[in-house]
């Protein structure tokens, strides 16, 4: 049970973002710019950064949701799984490995990012903007993970829920849906009921 009173049909971050739409707006905007805006990193690569950080923070809700989004964007589920297990040996570019290494250091503490880690990324062809975005995405997901777990939001256990959520994140992005959450609540109600 969440520590504060949230809509029971909006698990994880969604209920929190609806609870306070004023604070949600800039968080949503920032996420939309970073994960869906123009970038030399693909959307799939950016979702991999979000997933790795969430997985290192052991946030089940965010890890499952962003794994689903990354899988959809990459068109397969093997890469994301391997990135979570051991990104240094995952089938990704040398640049992505270096950027994920920076994200993993940011997850621990920003101070842990070394000159060497930055040099490695730059030598693998990473631009200043890509390094900036990697650090900010990693930092932003520390916010999300702590927000979601610090208030003990509901984490559904059925994979179908995250498949639907992943589709929504990929197709609609991170802005608040124009028509609100009524439809989604109904969908979630049946999804959540199907497991209980």
């Amino acid at each position: 049970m969440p520590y504060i009173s949230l809509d029971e049909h909006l698990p994880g971050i969604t209920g929190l973002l609806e609870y306070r739409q004023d604070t949600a707006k800039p968080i949503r905007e920032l996420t939309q710019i970073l994960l869906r805006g123009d970038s030399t990193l693909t959307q799939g690569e950016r979702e991999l950064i979000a997933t790795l950080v969430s997985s290192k923070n052991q946030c089940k809700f965010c890890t499952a949701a962003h794994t689903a989004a990354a899988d959809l964007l990459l068109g397969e589920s093997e890469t994301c799984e391997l990135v979570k297990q051991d990104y240094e040996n995952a089938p990704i570019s040398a640049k992505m490995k270096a950027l994920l290494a920076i994200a993993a250091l940011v997850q621990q503490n920003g101070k842990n990012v070394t000159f060497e880690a930055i040099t490695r990324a730059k030598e693998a062809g990473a631009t200043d903007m890509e390094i900036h975005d990697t650090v900010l995405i990693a930092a932003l997901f520390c916010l999300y993970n702590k927000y979601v777990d610090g208030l003990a939001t509901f984490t559904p256990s059925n994979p179908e829920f995250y498949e639907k959520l992943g589709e929504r994140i990929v197709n609609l992005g991170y802005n608040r849906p124009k028509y609100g959450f009524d439809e989604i609540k109904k969908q979630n109600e049946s999804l959540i009921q199907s497991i209980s």
Partner: protein
Amino acid sequence: MITHEKWFNTLFHVLSRETQPSLKTHNLKMAHIQLPEGVAGIRSLVMFRPDTGKPLYERENSPLSQAERELIAAYVSFRNSCVFCSMSHAAAARFLYKDEKQTVDLALKDYQSAPIPDKLKALLSIAGKVQTDARTVSAEDVQFAKSFDATDRDIHDTVLIAAAFCMFNRYVDGLATLTPTDPSAYEQMGERMGTLGYVLPNKQ
């Protein structure tokens, strides 16, 4: 009584000592990416990428006072050893606590014995757990805060402020932004935050 200058120096010393050795060789002189020269901390990042900076600079209303919120921000930043954020938000909190500005330094040193309300102590303990590992915030911690009349909104805002500063601290330190070593620089920042709030820097 501790003077602010003395406490600042102690805090700065402790924080700098806790950081990796590369702080001395790289961080204080050179950021990890090409940021505007001479601009410190978060402002240099917001100038580097203004579109992501805009949502980062928004501040909303809260049932907690501005002074209390700045204290939570400073406390979390202190725990993350982020010199820039802890110094600047401690300065903002001092400015907002006005005649009782020593409260801020006492709370940062040991909030349990500081002259602050029990509710704020309970909220700071939740913020501390969010900083370490948010999964450790327990139902008892929340119940304890509620026993001092903390509302859902107080608890929500505490967790979100703590989580947000875990983001800001990582952003500022992860890119090794410029960290001023002169206490008066932070005093000015604190006053600006306390009066103008979070104003986006002008374009260069």
